[in-house]
């Protein structure tokens, strides 16, 4: 039984957030979640049974039919390259005696809309871990202050399309791939390159074609380099929210045209279809044993139309207490040697993880290098203010920002 906090207790403390009523809602949420999870469990079992029984060929054909008929499917779907429910065990014996794993991650101090000076900071971290007879590690970060037009705009010649929000996020993803390209050049051993996060930059989906191409240019260039160097690359997504495979099962169950006809749907599988909308692929592939991966799937993400020969596929991998999503370029998927090396190396990384559920140490250490602490953010702000002060410039802040900083009573 959760304690019920008296409303008056919080009123007296003067907290703007009314924790009294919220605490009752928290109890209610916990109760509802526990009831729903029982129902979801039954649907999950049904969905997994479908995953085992549906022919991958038939599903592929149905998805292809939708595509040819130009019937828009309102969800991201997964196109199976192999079977739907087969599990591939970790080929641990395929790891070379000496090998490297490079992980990268990035963080930023975004531009401040409330300040008169416009800049942002990129901090790209990497970890090069060397295993085998001469184990070693390089943990580093590259930091960059971006303040010139070519950094601040996608099209600097026109000072058009500022890099902020989604585009700053995409720029970080590009830089974290470019650093992999640079770092792997220092390795003479077989190497696996891992990026924290997806390779499918779906956040660019709503941008114009020109913006997509401008941002993706460096990303695809780095992928081309890694392909040339025969270095398997992967985007690693822990605790993935993806539902691509679950959505494909919905398409399989569907007799009509979603979502317009969903309300009128009379199918006996309607409840399962609705339940699938809440089932994540990580749960669907919960049957994988530790170290096993699923077969590969293609993604229907629109942004992949811009990837050309580097189109990205994905698989799910049980790393131990967690099913992670691993995204790979198709040249990794189509080269069994690279794919096995990647699979073995990621599983090996998770085996070496200091925590549980496991997480690749190369990504953990890259994150530690990339992260910018609150103190560092403040220091950066002070450095900029000081440098500008020395040349007689003063930072003007918006009235709103100024009042928030002062918080006068």
């Amino acid at each position, binding site marked *: 039984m959760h304690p019920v906090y008296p409303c008056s207790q919080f009123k007296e403390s003067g907290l703007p957030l009314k924790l009294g009523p919220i605490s009752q809602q928290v109890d209610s949420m916990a109760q509802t979640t526990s009831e729903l999870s029982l129902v979801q469990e039954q649907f999950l079992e049904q969905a997994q049974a479908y995953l085992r029984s549906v022919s991958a060929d038939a599903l592929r054909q149905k998805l292809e039919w939708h595509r040819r008929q130009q019937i828009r499917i309102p969800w991201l779907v997964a196109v199976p390259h192999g079977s739907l429910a087969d599990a591939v065990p970790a080929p641990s014996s395929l790891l070379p005696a000496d090998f490297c794993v490079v992980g990268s991650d990035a963080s930023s101090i975004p531009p401040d809309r409330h300040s008169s000076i416009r800049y942002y900071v990129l901090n790209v971290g990497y970890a090069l871990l060397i*295993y085998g007879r001469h184990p070693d590690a390089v943990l580093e970060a590259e930091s960059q202050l971006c303040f010139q037009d070519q950094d601040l705009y996608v099209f600097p010649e026109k000072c058009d399309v500022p890099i902020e929000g989604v585009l700053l996020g995409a720029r970080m993803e590009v830089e974290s791939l470019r650093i992999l390209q640079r770092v792997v050049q220092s390795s003479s051993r077989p190497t696996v390159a891992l990026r924290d996060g997806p390779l499918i930059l779906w956040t660019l989906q709503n941008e114009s074609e020109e913006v997509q191409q401008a941002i993706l240019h460096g990303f695809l260039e780095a992928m081309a380099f890694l392909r040339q160097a025969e270095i398997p690359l992967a985007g690693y997504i822990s605790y993935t929210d993806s539902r691509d495979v679950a959505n494909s099962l919905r398409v399989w169950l569907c007799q009509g045209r979603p979502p317009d006809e969903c309300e009128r749907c009379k199918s006996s599988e309607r409840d399962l279809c609705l339940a699938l909308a809440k089932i994540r692929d990580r749960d669907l592939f919960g049957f994988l044993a530790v170290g096993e991966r699923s077969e590969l799937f293609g993604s229907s993400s629109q942004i992949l139309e811009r990837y050309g020969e580097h189109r990205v596929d994905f698989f799910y991998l049980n790393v131990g207490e967690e099913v992670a999503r691993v995204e790979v370029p198709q040249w990794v998927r189509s080269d069994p040697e690279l794919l096995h090396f990647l699979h073995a190396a990621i599983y090996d990384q998770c085996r070496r993880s200091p925590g549980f559920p496991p997480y690749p140490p190369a990504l953990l250490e890259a994150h530690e290098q990339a992260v910018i602490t609150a103190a560092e953010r403040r220091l950066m702000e002070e450095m900029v203010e000081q440098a500008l002060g020395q040349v007689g410039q003063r930072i003007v802040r918006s009235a709103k920002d100024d009042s928030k900083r002062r918080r006068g009573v």
Partner: protein
Amino acid sequence: MRIGEIIETMSTGFVAESFELNRPPALGSLVIVRLPAEVRGASAGMDLYAVVTYGRTAGLDPSRRAVCRSTDTVYDQAIYQEHPELKRILRTEFGAALVGFFADGQVLQHLPAQPPPLHFSVQTALAEEVRRFTDRLHYLRLLLTISGEVSPLQVMAANVREVYRHRGNDRIWLDAAAREIATLLKNDHEALLTVLYAIDPGG
């Protein structure tokens, strides 16, 4: 030989990062910080002498605690082979209490006027330097005043053991050191016994 770099410094001593993970200099051993003439602002350099008061290995980032990494098959030294990043994210540090200095051809056993500069090297003391510095025993008084996790009595006993060894098991020096300690602790019989038991070079 350079064994570490000063990362914190004060008038009474300093903290240094050891160049070798898990191998700080021996507790109680004498270490030296060499100051060239230009740093000292004099015509000749100066060697600061300090006694190691503790060693510690922990995460480089204080907000990241070390976690257990052993398995049934991977433990002890094999953990470092299996996790090469450890040598970059762990650090071994040691503390040292200043006990005197050698300048202008003289050994002086009191605190120097200035703390050693941050980021300067810490070096091991040569046998000859140990002998020269410890010919007099006034520095033991400074050791009695230190505060820290290791008690001054244990640091003093460790120092006597180390110096005895460095001086080639010099029994005469050991007797003199024991007498000096007996004088220092004449009002605290229990403390005196603690130090003498801890010295016990004969085992």
